């Protein structure tokens, strides 16, 4: 018999006289079921004469093998073919019966929906959700301001230890990365623009460009983006995992206000730290640009500083960056803490919310930056 392979399942369709005979043999387990699926399809096509299912040569069987044999006999019976078993051991008989008892229809996947409708629905829901989220964020900002205002009457609401801790985490520990990135960006700015401006013999304007772009835009933007990525995400993850462990619920039952305990120290720390970090980033960026000017254009520090003074005759250029820092601190604090407090359910939610918090912060920072740039130009700063 050609169908027999070692360590495999096989099936033979034969027949003598008025009866067809299907004999099964070998190892009918999940490991070998793939071998006989096609042959079983053939067997199912039988019609007319009664069929004997001979299991004598089956060496081993598991539920999958039992299922295949059961299914064949079921399908034959449905076609009104008389079937009977032969050579079935008690063990196999039990298994086949068990499998038969569990032959029930089952849903495999959630119902599919019209993809165009789903797309429309997603767009609608997405729009609605972002509007709702914006209003929730504003509501949360209002809540923070209310609690903060109350702190004037009850100064003990401000937790000094926690505040200092967060100032260290958000500010001090961010110094290396903020400094390095600003320094490099300042240097690159000079390096690239010097090449372009040289075409017009206007290398001197490098200093103007550096001073204005770092002070007004780049210093604060780089700082805000780094802090959003570093600390905004940390806030969400910290508060989120406390939500999961029901620590926040425990706080409320003990009579602590989670806004006071968790949000205010982080929020205030950002308000303190962001302007300082911005100043520091400005210094680092200009230092980087100055050094690059010295190296590339042979502009001595004294000359650089003189040009710098001419480029920025007015301290307001510096204040533009620092004022933006306060706005961005609010954005990062509100977004980070709000998303943290919105964590619910599973650990997966912490990850989603953390991503959400960072993306949302950076998005709002850039939108706000554009609006403020227009505003400052309009008021002539």
């Amino acid at each position, binding site marked *: 018999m050609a169908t027999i392979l070692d360590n495999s399942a096989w099936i033979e369709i034969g027949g003598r006289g008025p009866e067809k005979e299907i004999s099964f043999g070998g190892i009918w*387990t*999940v*490991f070998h*079921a*793939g071998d006989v*699926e096609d042959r079983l399809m053939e067997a199912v096509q039988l019609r007319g004469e009664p069929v004997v299912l001979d299991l004598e040569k089956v060496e081993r069987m*598991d*539920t*999958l093998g039992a*299922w*295949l044999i059961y*299914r064949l006999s079921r399908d034959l019976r449905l076609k009104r073919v008389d079937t009977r078993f032969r050579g079935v051991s008690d*063990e196999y008989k*039990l*298994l086949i019966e*068990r*499998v038969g008892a*569990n*032959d*029930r*229809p*089952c*849903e*495999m*996947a*959630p*119902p599919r929906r019209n993809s165009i409708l789903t797309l429309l629905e997603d767009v609608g829901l997405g729009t609605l959700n972002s509007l709702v989220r914006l209003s929730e964020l504003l509501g949360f900002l209002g809540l923070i301001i209310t609690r903060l205002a109350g702190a004037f009457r009850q100064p003990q609401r401000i937790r000094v230890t926690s505040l200092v801790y967060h100032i260290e985490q958000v500010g001090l520990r961010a110094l290396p990365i903020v400094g390095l990135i600003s320094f490099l960006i300042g240097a690159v700015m000079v390096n690239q623009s010097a090449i372009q401006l040289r075409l017009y013999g206007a290398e001197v304007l490098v200093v103007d460009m550096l001073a204005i772009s770092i002070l007004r835009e780049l210093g604060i933007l780089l700082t805000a983006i780094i802090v959003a990525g570093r600390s905004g995400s940390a806030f969400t993850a910290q508060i989120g995992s406390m939500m999961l462990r029901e620590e926040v619920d425990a706080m409320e039952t003990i009579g602590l206000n989670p806004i006071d305990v968790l949000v205010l120290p982080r929020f205030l720390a950002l308000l303190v730290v962001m302007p300082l970090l911005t100043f520091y980033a400005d210094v680092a960026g200009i230092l980087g640009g100055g050094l690059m000017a010295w190296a590339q254009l042979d502009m001595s520090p004294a000359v650089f500083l003189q040009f710098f003074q001419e480029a920025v005759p007015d301290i307001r250029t510096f204040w533009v960056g620092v004022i933006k820092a306060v706005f961005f601190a609010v954005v990062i604090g509100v977004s980070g803490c709000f998303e943290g407090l919105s964590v619910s*359910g*599973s650990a*997966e939610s912490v990850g989603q919310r953390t991503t959400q918090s960072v993306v949302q912060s950076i998005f709002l920072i850039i939108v706000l930056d554009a609006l403020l740039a227009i505003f400052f130009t309009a008021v002539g700063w």
Partner: protein
Amino acid sequence: MNQQSGNGHEIVIRVQNLVTRFDYTVIHDDLNLDVRKGEILGVVGGSGAGKSVLLKIIIGLLKPSSGTVEINGQAQAGLTSDELAAERRRWGVLFQDGALFSALTVAQNIQVPLREHFNLSQNLMDEIAALKISMVGLSPEAGAKYPSDLSGGMRKRAGLARALALDPALLLLDEPTAGLDPIGAADFDRLIVELKEALGLTVFLVTHDLDTLHAVCDRIAVLVDKRVIVVGTIADLLEYNHPWVEEYFKGPRARAANISVA
């Protein structure tokens, strides 16, 4: 290839002289344990006694510091990763909360091992998933649901269905009834016994639940003082003279579970 223990039982899992150390904390010190073919063996012990660690060592997720684990007479330490993967297809493991893949429906979860290891038609895999879902007592609608939409008890049943997908001869369960209400736990106990009878399984289970021990286990191994101090039926353990064992099997909760001292 199966080895025999002294009194003629075929041994499926044999743990010998197992020592486990995490840094300077010793979890297991010279631990020995045999699991016989066709039995349900329960492992009990206090919190932090190293029960779950023992299970993870048996299934090869953790490496012991010394000692050997043999499954069906095959020392696990000497296997290459391919051989170990082939071995693992012969066991089913149910983790504490089911450990279902959250991005897949229950039916798809059950089909993961089939899809990964065999070349079966989608139609047949769907039938197998339906069969397993029915066997573990889940309703037909459960197949299309995602794990997050299931209750704890249903998640465990679905996890069990996935563990049974490849028809393993050996089933390892980590706290199968933890977190279930008493009715759900009793149902699950019954399910384990039924499946063991129907499929001829050998079951290794770690538990805290005295009711489970009473209702399900053929033998119980007590993991105390970093080793298995005694293995036996509940009757044997009631006779055993050790403060922890006495406290455990004769305490108020044991009485409630009807493990009474006759």
